[in-house]
């Protein structure tokens, strides 16, 4: 049963991660694959705050999201002032650099990992309650992003993707939009990190490296960029598929690379054979249903 709960929770968390990543890479068109590092920041911050009894766990989780939000701005502001390409390099540097840094800080467990993170909800209400919490939050994330991208802000992102110069000439601040969206996406990932930390109660820096980046990217690309349900399907498929491999009882030295190979191989296949993903996004941005638009 615990195994099933873990999988459900991971599916929920990956739905949150993939949806928020889709907001950044799909809707806003920002090239960055460092999403897991903001997940990591949220996880570590929340875990440390709770471990040292600085604040109650729900607040700690929120703080993790806030810190991830702020950290993302620290990366995005200098990089985006130059160009979109720099964001990618800056964020990869930030991701790998921070992982390297975390390995050397004893206070957060170093390379060995952070253990004994306090758990949340489970002791009082059972594991089922945590599953419900994560899945509800996953659903809310999907709905939130759908709402945001179909409103006037979504219209801005669509136009900015099309033609940034013309977009600026209308008086819209493209850099500000990018920094904001990058921040929101990263903040959501940070909250997901907190949810991870207080269920699995163990964190190690290497979890949040390029393997995780490829996994989240795969979910979005396979599911379909800029679709509300694409990341959900991507998260389901890619979370369940590796679970099936685990039934073959392969040694961990083979299992890890094999999973990586599947993730990256799938992205490659989709990039060349079906670039739009399983669910194709509509070409034209339509916003909310016309009857809701008001007269």
């Amino acid at each position, binding site marked *: 049963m615990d195994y099933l709960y873990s999988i459900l929770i991971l599916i929920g968390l990956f739905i949150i991660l993939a949806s928020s990543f889709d907001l950044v*890479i799909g809707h806003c*068109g920002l*090239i960055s*694959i460092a999403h897991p590092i903001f997940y990591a920041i949220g996880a570590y911050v929340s875990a440390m705050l709770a471990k040292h009894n600085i604040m109650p766990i729900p607040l700690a989780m929120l703080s993790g999201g806030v810190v991830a939000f702020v950290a993302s701005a620290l990366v995005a502001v*200098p*990089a985006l002032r*130059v*160009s*979109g*390409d*720099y964001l*990618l*390099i*800056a964020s*990869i*540097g*930030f991701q*790998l*650099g*921070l992982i*390297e*840094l975390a390995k*050397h800080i004893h206070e957060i467990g170093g390379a060995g990992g952070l253990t004994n993170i306090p758990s949340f909800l489970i002791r009082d209400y059972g594991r089922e309650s945590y599953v419900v919490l994560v899945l509800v939050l996953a659903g809310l994330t999907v709905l939130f992003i759908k709402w945001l991208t179909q409103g006037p802000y979504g219209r801005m992102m669509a136009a900015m993707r099309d033609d940034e110069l013309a977009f600026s000439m209308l008086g819209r601040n493209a850099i500000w939009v990018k920094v904001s969206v990058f921040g929101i996406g990263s903040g959501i990932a940070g909250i997901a990190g907190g949810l991870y930390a207080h269920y699995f109660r163990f964190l190690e820096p290497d979890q949040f490296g*390029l*393997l995780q980046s*490829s996994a989240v*990217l795969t979910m979005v*690309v396979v599911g379909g960029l800029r679709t509300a349900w694409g990341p959900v399907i991507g998260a389901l498929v890619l979370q369940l598929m590796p679970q099936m491999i685990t039934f073959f009882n392969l040694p961990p*030295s*083979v299992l*890890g*690379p*094999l999973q*990586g*190979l599947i993730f*990256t*191989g799938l*992205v*490659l296949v989709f*990039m*060349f054979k079906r*670039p739009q993903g399983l669910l194709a996004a509509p070409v034209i941005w339509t916003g909310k249903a016309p009857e809701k638009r008001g007269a």
Partner: protein
Amino acid sequence: MFDVAVVSQILWTSFATSSYFVLFAVAFALVLKVNKVFNFAQAGVMTCGFYAAYVAVRLLEWPGFAGLLAGIAGALLMSFILEYFGFAVLRQRKASPMFVFIFTLIVSQFISYAIMLVFGTWPTTIFASMFWPVTLVGGIAVSAWDVPAIAATLVVLIALWVFLRFTRYGQFMLAVADNADLAELYGIQKNKVLMISMLMAGVIVAIGMFLYGSRAQVQAAAATELMLFAVASTILGGIGNIWGAAVAAIILGIVQNSSILFIPSAWQGFLLYAFLFFAIVLFPRGFRLPERANKLKRTIRAPDALVTKQEG
């Protein structure tokens, strides 16, 4: 505290070890300049080059020189596959830069996982031993690796310079780098030139990986870090400037290796990311991105081209 002998020893060793950094940086800068791609798949090419040499020398027990050729062959094959089945297809499809970039990143990850499956995750070297005999030159220990490595790097750099400067295809490459569309109008076969530039970068990184792998341990994921070093050098050296990248790589190499004097060795690995960050945050303004530089050139060129058209 800093003994002159110690300092000069560290400086010399740092200088020698920056030789492969230079090669990686030059290859990265070349592809960025000509093909206009931040080619993170270079890490994959590097990995292929290394493991081809490793198989030849360690498993098949070929001599070192044959190992180098095997490494070059491996890197060439991977570069060819990348360009022919990857970049060329994406170009034809007019894929967005983001798409191309993700492709390069994913390919390099894919290769590293494939290599892990085949060769495991243990680090290894091209030769059974990575200790090289040492000669004392004026109080400085010079290893038998240092001089050939520096010489090989110099030969590659000179060859590249001669190629770009004096050969037909070298000129074509510069023309494509300058303005690919215009070059095509003049009858230069763009696809062929882009393929050659990828293959040349493949040869260069294969030599670099051979040097690196005969001195340090390599595992499937190691190339990523080496490549990020090349990225930092390329940005610092000024995008579009191959020789600038080479100089930046030497400087960064010396700083990183001699950092042992100032910071604990455990933190040395972290320095790379600090470089990358500084390069982007402090020095980006002076450097134009290939896309932008290109647009600028077009605004200059367009009038001439149009004027000639009107006259004709």
